[in-house]
């Protein structure tokens, strides 16, 4: 019985390892050669991307904070004080605050992975570099999705405020 369990655990482990290993496609020799030859340029490019992302992260974070605290929260408080609490607007503000936390987390994960990618020696290990690149792409896509979800909540919030305005 114990042996069966051990074999099952090992099978799952190797399946996970192989899934991780097959994360990125295998590069052809020519493609590996291109990465090796242009490694310095690629590293520079990645550092530029990192800087641009950092600036955008801080700017977006600042706007998200403004929208959440200075606008959405203030409006909800004012509505409550006027005995006109709006459940939809409150829910949207809560969702926005939660999504902001997700945005912070996925951005940090992405930047951490990008650091690993920049530290990977693309001249000597182009395939390893490419595997890491695929991981960074996945993390970056999560950040992009989070930005999209935050925008959607803001759009819904605006529609709800317009609806409320029409009710007056």
């Amino acid at each position: 019985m114990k042996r069966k369990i051990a074999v099952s655990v090992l099978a799952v482990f190797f399946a996970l390892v192989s899934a991780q290993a097959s994360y990125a496609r295998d590069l052809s020799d020519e493609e590996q050669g291109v990465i090796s030859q242009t490694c310095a340029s690629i590293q520079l490019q990645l550092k530029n991307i990192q800087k641009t992302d950092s600036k955008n992260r801080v700017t977006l974070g600042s706007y998200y904070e403004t929208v959440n605290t200075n606008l959405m929260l203030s409006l909800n408080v004012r509505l409550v004080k006027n005995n006109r609490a709006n459940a939809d607007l409150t829910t949207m503000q809560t969702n926005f605050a939660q999504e902001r936390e997700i945005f912070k987390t996925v951005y940090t994960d992405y930047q951490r992975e990008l650091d690993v990618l920049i530290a990977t020696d693309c001249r000597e290990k182009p395939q390893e570099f490419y595997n890491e690149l695929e991981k960074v792409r996945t993390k970056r896509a999560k950040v992009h999705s989070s930005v999209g979800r935050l925008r959607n909540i803001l759009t819904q919030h605006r529609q709800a405020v317009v609806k409320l305005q029409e009710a007056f």
Partner: protein
Amino acid sequence: MSDTPSPAPAAPPEAPPKVNGGRNLIILCLGAILIAIITTGFSLWAYRQNDIYLDRSRPGFIAEGEKNEEEVLEKFSDEGEIDAAVLEQYLSEFDYVKGKIDGLSNSFSDGPLADKNFLFDDDDNSSADSASENTP
């Protein structure tokens, strides 16, 4: 001659406890250094985990002139009446910020990390192009 027993001889005074000041001082110093190392290490670890990715002041990361313009936006008052005009003013402020956010909607798109930026020579595309795609 009285029969009263003579008083017992006084016990010799207790020797004061031996204090090894030099050794205690060394232990105190080592303890303080150890605590300082542990707390500093923890702080650096915590910084490395999260804040480093927001710390634009870290040496050489983003120069002052390259930082995005930051503006202080007014807070919508949570006091006062609520009517259509107030909501109109709210929407005006909201739309301004939302416009700024929409302007950055292409941030973190997959373009800059696409294969074409890594598997072709620089002649086919420039890093500046891909970086600018991400710039607001």
